[in-house]
């Protein structure tokens, strides 16, 4: 609650990877990070909805984020995890390859995303450069992080349930 107000311009993001790319989402939307466990598949839903899982008694859909963004589906490995986020009051889990870090960025440092050639608008809300700690202890180096617009990723938005 308080972190978003200190200093006014600063937000915290959680960064993660999908393949070779680094992504970030606003910390405030994050509910929790869970280990991967096989969700229960659903009939008649788009392929990127991997199924539903039990989050402490609530049924939460799990989305293959890579697939959703148009890349090759993630393969499951030891560090695969699910970011459970809150999108406009609904909960959803995103399968990601690896969670990296939580970093503070200046909102003013966010650059607008160039017109990304995705089928839909504004899934990437902006780009930001961070200095990433390297796991192997080598020199920190600048890294591009794609900030995701969760609202644009809302599951229900792109589905016509009446189908």
């Amino acid at each position, binding site marked *: 609650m308080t972190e978003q107000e200190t200093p006014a311009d600063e937000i915290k993001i959680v960064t993660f990877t999908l393949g070779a790319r680094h992504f970030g989402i606003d910390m405030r939307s994050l509910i929790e990070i869970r280990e991967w466990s096989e*969700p*229960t*598949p*659903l*009939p*008649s*839903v788009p392929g990127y*909805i991997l*199924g*539903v*899982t*039990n989050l*402490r*008694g*609530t*049924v*939460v*859909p799990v989305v293959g984020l890579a697939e959703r963004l148009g890349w090759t589906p993630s393969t499951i490995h030891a560090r695969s995890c699910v970011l459970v986020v809150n999108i406009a009051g*609904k*909960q*959803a889990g995103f399968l990601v390859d690896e969670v990296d870090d939580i970093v503070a960025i200046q909102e003013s440092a966010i650059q607008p995303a160039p017109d990304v050639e995705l089928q839909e608008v504004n899934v990437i809300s902006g780009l930001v450069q961070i200095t990433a700690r390297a796991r192997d202890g080598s020199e920190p180096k600048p890294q591009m992080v794609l900030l995701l617009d969760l609202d644009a990723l809302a*599951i*229900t938005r792109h*589905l016509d*349930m*009446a*189908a």
Partner: protein
Amino acid sequence: MSDDMDDIQAIFFEECAEGLAAAEQGLSAMQAGDVSPATIAAVFRAVHSIKGGAGAFGHVALTAFAHKFENLLDEVRAERIAPTPPTVGVMLSALDILSDHVAASQGSATTPDDAASLAAIQAVLNGEAGTVPASPPSLSPSPAPVAPVEAAQPADADPFGFEPVSVAVDDFDLGAIMAPAEQDAEAEPVGEPDWRVEFGPSREAMAGGSEPMLVIRELEDLGGRVVAVDCSSLPALRDVEPEDAYLRWTIQLPGWTREDSIQEAFDFVAPDSHIAIARFETERTPATTASEEPRGGDARALIGQIEAAAPGIAAAAQAAETRVTDSASQTIRVDLHKLDNLLNLVGELVIRNSILSDRLSAKDQERVELPELARLTREIQDNVMSLRAQPIKQAFSRVPRMLRDLMAETGKQVTLQTFGETTEVDKGVIEKIGDPLTHLIRNAVDHGLESPEERLRAGKSAEGTIRLSAEQKGARIIVTVADDGRGIDRARVRAKAIEKGIIPADAALSDEEIDQLICAPGFSTAATISNISGRGVGMDVVRSNVEALGGRVEISSTPGKGTSFTLVLPLTLAILDGMVVRLAGQRFVLPLATVVEAIRPEPGQVSATTPDNEVIEIRGEYLPVRRLTEVFGLHANEDRPVHESLVIIVESESAGRVGLLVDTIDDRREVVIKSLEQNLHPIRGLGGATILGDGSIALILDVEALVASAASHNRNLMRGLAA
């Protein structure tokens, strides 16, 4: 801030709804002859609390009307006016207006015209008082009859020739009500009637710099008290002239005050202002004084009056309550979300419990007293479940008013009989059966019951009867709306269905099937069968609403004797008795209520009629079969021979009996229903999800949706019904 206000308002309107329901129920009971003090007090309390809340939120029109209504109720409660059928009738129509006022305050309707109702109330207040017969013995002796409030105008002092009596007031908590200044007055021997002074400063007086406040203060110093403020001439805010005077006060002064000292107070505002000084009949009960009617809706005056009257009312209500302590149990208002959370947590507990029992050997289970833990857990679950349960009375309480409206509209006479009102149902169910119930009652009056003349011709009483009942049968609630009307005209229904293309002209239908047709979409009864049109009473709406609840509608009708609609509903929306089945290795839950039987087919028992359609032969009957793995696109074991699978015969509203092909049956158990919509969206063929003992999720099958598509595939006779 405004959100908070909205929240509080929302609570107020919720309370209004409850209050209206309680008043409705009480008045209906009174109409039926139950005029016990407890019933009257319940109605009074309901109206009183609506008034109180409305005043606090500044719903002026509502407050004013509720106040007047309350006055009448107060008189009835105090046994100064007898609850005769005409009086109860006035109160019933006042309740209608009151509920319109509530709707208007809520913004969902325009402010009703309450003039007629107010006049009726006034007429009762004027006419009935003093003619009340001796009070029933159940009550403590009531005070001597009192001149009605409105009759006690300044001009006609003592019109009834009563001796002022200031002693026989034991029933009223005088001390709490009396203003201190007046207690002295009361202590005085009552020689002369009190003064009643009306004061309306003129524009000239105001312009001349006189200050009404000072006048009133002076009168107060003499022992006076403002008992009413007339603000009926107060214009709309934009038209208010700050210089002008709009208000008129009524001030009551003790009888021993000298007239000339009263006159003196007005020295600086006379002679243009309206000043009327007169003696009037002393009221025996200050409580009546306190609830003296204002001439308008000035909220402040009302609040003042409420404050003045509150202790007395509270005391009286308390007295009433001690007489009927057994009637109401204590309740607490809880946010439904909290209950749902609790239910979820208990559900988790149940699941953990079964995980434990899966993992522990029988011996270990005994050692850690797992069976005892399981029993406790189950009990907690039942209790939490019952927290959501409410008497179905809530849904039924809307019916009497609706019937009154319908009777007025149609000129038909209807008696309502209700049974099983205390049957407890999940709150979610109660909320959702309101609309179907409304439709069914309308339908019964519009189409079921005949006109009085017609009934007499048919040798029935002119008055029709609608029987509304609820009962619990196992895990189901049976709600029935039955009328003793003309019954369903099957020939006509059939002709209409053929005309509308719902059934082919040569369809052979049983009586029951014909009756079911009135629930078919597009079979709008209002436009086609009834002489009352323009309401669109669609029985298909009833059916789809009930089915959305996981229930079904049964219709039975006897020509000339009547029709009855039975809603078979689940007891709760949260729990379902299910059969766990496997499809391509994945577990699904089939609601047990729909299951007729499970069959392991012999080779050859299932055969294809077209490349995409199969039927199963059971005792000479051919039923369509749906392969659920195909419906859901689970193509794991397509070549598996049919006779290694199971066919579960389900009974559906829309397509009758259909076989569903599944791999195996795992288990039968009660499952806690979790919505898919909460975080995803509805998926056709699925009614939700549940969490199994191992924490994994199983999807709940929606049989109606599954067989409906089967029906359309099979070009079933009832295709129109399934659309």
